[in-house]
């Protein structure tokens, strides 16, 4: 959505009479992009659904504090990526106490028929991505898949452009090496 569209939505949200309608428009405009950026990180639909809903609920809660310096989309991505990373972090901590290894769960999800369209290379690519640290995986998705600029990524992740470039470079190298082995 362009800046004008964002502005329209924000105007609607500012007015108590049209607030609900404005927020519904915001969801309709960004739900697919927000869902997919989350789904790429957590893979499993049910988890992605929970986090997508939480992202918009948080956005609704803090929308009055949104100053409009960045676009709504980078602001929503910031919430969505934070939520996804803290979800994965929580799952890792819980693994200490349970036999449910979330990493294994995500890997086997890739193998289950019906979850991914595409060939063996797609599955391999997804599994290779899972071997990367979560933040590196996020950087790879934002750059390679979403084709965001480093400046936008810096705004979303709160990390310097230099660190993001290095992180992306490492991620690509690891994926290429891993695919070459197969």
């Amino acid at each position, binding site marked *: 959505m362009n800046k004008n569209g964002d502005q329209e939505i924000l105007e609607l949200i500012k007015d108590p009479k049209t607030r609900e309608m404005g927020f519904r428009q915001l969801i309709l405009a960004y739900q*697919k992009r927000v869902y997919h950026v989350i789904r790429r990180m957590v893979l499993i*639909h049910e988890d992605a659904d929970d986090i997508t809903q939480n992202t918009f609920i948080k956005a609704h809660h803090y929308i009055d504090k949104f100053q409009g310096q960045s676009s709504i989309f980078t602001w929503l991505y910031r919430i969505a990526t934070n939520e996804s990373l803290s979800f994965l972090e929580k799952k890792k901590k819980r693994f200490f106490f349970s036999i449910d290894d979330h990493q294994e769960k995500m890997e086997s999800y890739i193998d289950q028929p019906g979850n*991914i369209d*595409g060939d063996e*290379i*797609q599955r391999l690519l*997804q599994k290779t991505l899972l071997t990367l640290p979560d933040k590196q995986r996020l950087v790879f998705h934002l750059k390679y898949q979403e084709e965001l600029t480093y400046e936008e990524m810096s705004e979303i992740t709160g990390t310097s452009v230099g660190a993001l470039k290095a992180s992306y470079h490492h991620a690509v190298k690891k994926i*290429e090496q891993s695919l070459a082995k197969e």
Partner: protein
Amino acid sequence: MQKLPKIQDFKVPENYFDSLPDNIMDKVSPQRSFYWMKYAAAAAILVVSLGVWQFNSSSSQYEAISMDEEVNLFIESQYWTAEDVLSMVDNPEEILDQIIAEEMVYEVDIVDENDQNWY
């Protein structure tokens, strides 16, 4: 990077994006009625706890009255003798002394009254 193919998105359940806005709006909209419910719940708890407190205090009062009446009934019907009642208290000696002292005063009073009459 040309070696890497684009990553395909995972499949999304059918009609998921049709129902998602409603699911989210349902969770964010009832905020006002939720606040109202919170106050209503607090008021309800206050009323119930006041009621329970009132009921408890009145019933204990009722119990105390009925206990006194029961004791009186036992004494009046001479089912309990003075010795029985004394044996049931914690400090029979003290009570006995008190009773004797009261009776002595009564006697002294009578003597005084008599003295007055003599004048």
